[in-house]
């Protein structure tokens, strides 16, 4: 089995209402499709990226800088997909 290093990338929350229940749910649903361990970090708080509620607990306001830490054999494609979700303002309904 290949040994992988976790990938860490920063992203700014684009949703005008912050990381509220719906974008958090979208993120967690997308994250659960990957085998990798996915964590989202905001200041001193760390959330399991596969749990919508833990993501809401980050209280990530619009413009907040988050870090995504992904560890696993599908980490690279996971990071690409998930960064896009946080950088997406979310359309008319946010």
């Amino acid at each position, binding site marked *: 089995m290949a040994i992988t290093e976790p990938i860490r990338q920063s992203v700014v929350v684009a949703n005008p*209402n912050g990381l*509220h*229940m*719906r974008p958090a749910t979208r993120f967690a649903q997308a994250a659960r499709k990957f085998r990798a361990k996915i964590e989202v970090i905001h200041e001193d708080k760390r959330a399991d990226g596969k749990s919508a509620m833990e993501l*809401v*607990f980050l209280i990530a306001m619009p413009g907040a800088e988050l870090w995504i830490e992904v560890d696993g054999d599908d980490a690279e494609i996971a990071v690409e997909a998930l960064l896009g979700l946080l950088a997406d303002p979310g359309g008319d309904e946010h």
Partner: protein
Amino acid sequence: MSMTDFIVWDAVLPVLRETTREGVIREMIQSLHGQGQFPNTDLEDIVRAVLRREQLGSTGIGRTIAIPHSRHASVGKLIGTIGIAANGIPFESIDGEAVHVLVLLISPQDRPGDHLRALENVVQTMRDDAVVDSLRKATTTDEIRRIIELNRPKH
């Protein structure tokens, strides 16, 4: 922020009469209105806003809890109420379970931080299954209030 800061206690419904998702949402909004909230507002407009949000994805977060919510221009600060449905309401929750404990939140258009903190507070207060269970069994507003105050999250 704690739930005691935004729950309108006189609008809490220990025994919801309605039996559908739309019905209980309307019942809870009417209860807030009965306590002087949303003056000069078409209540159906608020009901529609909350139902529209439900259509985008159920706010039934599992463990028999639902947090229906919306922003609405008729409130100047975030308010909420609690409803208990002893028999359970079909809610298309993420875990497929019927909902027994509802917390309805209406927030101003421009205060996303308050909304996030309120959501966090509701979920943290009900983090323990025993709390949800005791809320389900509560039959008076005083009991509900005591349970919420005893389980206020420590920050």
